[in-house]
C-alpha cells in the first residue's frame, strides 16, 4: 500500500495505491468482510482550525491507516517518514512493514471528545465537561453518486454545534470508500481522522470515545459476543490502541465500564440532553426517525431506565423487528436482557419472543447498572482520576459477583 496526502485550504486529500499483493477485498478488525469502491477521499478541517500542511507525519499515517488497513497485506509506504516507534507498532501488532522511518514521535496534552451526538458520547461529554468536541460529518464523495440522501449528517452536525461546547466539525467522504457492506467506516477508528489531523493544532494528547461496556468488553455488535479483554479494536494494548498511543493520541474510553442503560441515563440527565440524537435519519425539528433498528433498540433502553411501557409504532411483524423474533444471540444482547427485564408490558411488544427466550429479571441484569472497574484502570493515567471519581459518584462500581458477570459473558 502506498499512501499520498495533499492539502490545500484545510482540505486534506488522501490517495492510496494498492501494491501487487493488496486487494480490493478485505476484513475489518471487527471481522466484517469489506470491499473497496475507490481509493481517494477528503477530510475538510474547520477553516479556523487548520495549521496548513503542518501536521505530524505519524498522525497522517494513522489517519490514512484507518481507511487503508483492510486492503493492505504486507507493507505500507507513507509519503513522509514516520517515527520509529510507530513503525515498530506496525511491525509488532500488525505484521506490516511500514516506512519510510525517520523523525521524532509526537505528543500533546489535551483530551478531546469524539462526539457523535448519541447517548454514549454525550455521557463521555458529561464526564469531561471542559473537553472540546470533534464531530465527524459525512459528506458526499465527488466520484460516487449519492444514493443515501436519507442520511442527515447535517442535522447531527447542527445539533453538535448547538451544544455550546467547543466543537470542531470535520467533514469527510471516507465512508464512501466502502462498496460493501455499504457506506461506513472502513475501520471504526476512521471516525477519529478529524482528531488526528487536528491533534497538533489543538494540542491533543488523547481522544475520548463513547464505546461502552458491550463494545469494549462483551464483544458486542459485530464482534465476538463473549468477554474480550484483548479486544483488538478498543483495548489500550491492542493493535489499534497501540497505534494511537504511539502517535501521542491514546484512545480514551471513559464509559467503557458502563452499559448503554447507564450512558443513556447519564445523557438524559446531562445539560446536553436536548441535543441528543442517535439516529442519522431524523429531521432537524422532528427528532429521531423512531422506526429504524437503532431507534427501536435505543427506545427499549430508554423505556427500561424510565420504567415505562415501550413507545413505538413498530410491531413484531415488521421487517425491522424480525431479528428479535428469532432466538438469541442478539446484537447488544445484554441491553435486550436489561430492556425486557425492566419494560412493563414487554410481552405485548415486538420483544415478547426475545423476553421469553432470555428470561431476564431485574435481579439478573443488575450488574448492568454499575461500572466495571478494569475499564477505569485502562483509561490513561492523566484522565483516570476524573473518570474514577465520576463513576464512583454517579454510577457505583460493580461488586465482584457483578464483575464476574462481565468476565463470564457468553451469548
Amino acid at each position, binding site marked *: 500500500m*502506498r499512501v499520498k496526502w495533499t492539502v490545500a485550504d484545510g482540505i486534506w486529500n488522501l490517495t492510496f*495505491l*494498492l*501494491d*501487487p499483493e*493488496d486487494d*480490493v477485498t478485505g476484513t475489518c478488525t471487527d471481522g466484517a468482510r469489506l*470491499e*473497496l*469502491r*475507490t*481509493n481517494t477521499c477528503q477530510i475538510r478541517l474547520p477553516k479556523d482550525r487548520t495549521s496548513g500542511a503542518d501536521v505530524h507525519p505519524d498522525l497522517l499515517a494513522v489517519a490514512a491507516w484507518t481507511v487503508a488497513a483492510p486492503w493492505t497485506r504486507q507493507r505500507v509506504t507513507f509519503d513522509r517518514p514516520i517515527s520509529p516507534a510507530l513503525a515498530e507498532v506496525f511491525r509488532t501488532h500488525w505484521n506490516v512493514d511500514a516506512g519510510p522511518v525517520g523523525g521524532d514521535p509526537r505528543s500533546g496534552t489535551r483530551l478531546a471528545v469524539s462526539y457523535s451526538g448519541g447517548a454514549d458520547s454525550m455521557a463521555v461529554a458529561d464526564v469531561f465537561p471542559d473537553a472540546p468536541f470533534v464531530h465527524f460529518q459525512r459528506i458526499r464523495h465527488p*466520484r*460516487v*453518486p449519492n*444514493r443515501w440522501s436519507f442520511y442527515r449528517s447535517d442535522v447531527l452536525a447542527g445539533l453538535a454545534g448547538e451544544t455550546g461546547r467547543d466543537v470542531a466539525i470535520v467533514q469527510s467522504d471516507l465512508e464512501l470508500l466502502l*462498496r460493501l457492506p455499504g457506506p461506513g467506516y472502513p475501520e471504526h477508528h476512521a471516525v477519529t481522522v478529524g482528531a488526528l489531523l487536528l491533534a497538533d493544532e489543538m494540542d491533543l494528547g488523547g481522544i475520548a470515545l463513547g464505546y461502552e461496556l458491550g463494545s469494549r468488553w462483551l464483544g458486542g455488535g459485530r464482534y465476538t459476543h463473549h468477554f474480550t479483554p484483548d479486544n483488538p479494536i478498543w483495548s489500550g494494548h491492542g493493535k489499534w490502541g497501540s497505534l494511537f498511543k504511539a502517535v501521542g493520541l491514546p484512545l480514551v474510553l471513559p464509559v467503557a465500564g458502563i452499559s448503554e442503560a447507564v450512558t443513556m441515563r447519564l445523557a438524559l440527565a446531562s445539560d446536553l440532553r436536548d441535543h441528543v440524537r442517535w439516529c442519522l435519519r431524523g429531521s432537524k425539528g422532528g427528532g429521531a426517525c423512531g422506526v429504524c433498528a437503532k431507534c427501536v433498540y435505543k427506545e427499549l433502553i430508554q423505556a427500561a431506565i424510565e420504567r415505562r411501557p415501550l413507545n413505538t409504532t413498530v410491531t413484531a411483524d415488521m421487517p425491522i423487528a424480525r431479528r428479535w423474533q428469532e432466538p438469541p444471540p442478539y446484537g447488544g444482547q445484554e441491553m435486550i436482557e436489561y430492556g425486557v427485564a425492566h419494560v412493563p408490558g414487554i410481552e405485548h411488544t415486538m420483544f415478547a419472543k426475545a423476553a421469553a427466550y432470555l428470561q431476564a429479571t431485574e435481579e439478573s441484569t443488575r450488574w448492568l447498572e454499575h461500572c466495571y472497574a478494569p475499564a477505569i484502570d485502562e483509561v490513561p493515567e492523566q484522565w483516570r482520576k476524573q473518570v474514577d471519581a465520576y463513576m464512583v459518584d454517579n454510577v457505583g462500581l460493580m461488586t465482584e459477583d457483578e464483575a464476574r458477570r462481565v468476565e463470564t459473558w457468553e451469548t
Partner: protein
Amino acid sequence: MGLSLRPMMRFVGRVLVPARVRRAFLSRLDARYVTQADHRQDVRNIRDEFRRLHRETKDDRRDDAAAYATKESAKDIAKAIAKDVVKDVVSAAVKDAQRENQSLREEIVALRAEVRALKQLTATVNKANDQAVKGHRLAERTAEALDHVLQNEVRVWQAIDGLSAQTPATNL
C-alpha cells in the same frame, strides 16, 4: 201564467237556491194539495210566495252572488294570496332548492374537477413513479456500474504499478 212546477222545480233545481229557501218552498208546496179553491188560493199564495221567494231569492242570489263573488274573490284573493304565498314559499323553496342544487352542482363540479385533478395527479405520479422507479433502477445500475469502473481503476493502477516495478526502465 203557465208556470208549471216542473220548470219551476227545474228552475229551482237549476238555480242554485240557497238550501234554506228551497226547504221552506217545498214544505209549503206539499201542504197545499187539498181543495180547488184552496188550491187556487194556494197557487196564488204560492205564486206570491214564489214571487216573494223569487225576490227573496233574487235578493238572496244577489247577496249570495255578492257573497259568492266576495267569497270567490276572497277565494281568489286567498287563492291568489295562497298562490302567491305558495309561490313565494315555493319559489323560496325552489330558490333554496335551486341554491342548494346550485351549490351541490358547484360542489359536484368542484369534486369532479378535484377527481379529475387527482386522476391526473395519480397518472402523473404513476408516470413519475414509473419513471422514478425506472430512474431509480437506472441510477442504481449506473451507480453499480460506476462502482465497478472505480474499483477497476484501482485495480488498473495496481497492475500498472506492478508492471512498472517489474520493469524499472520503462516509464509508464
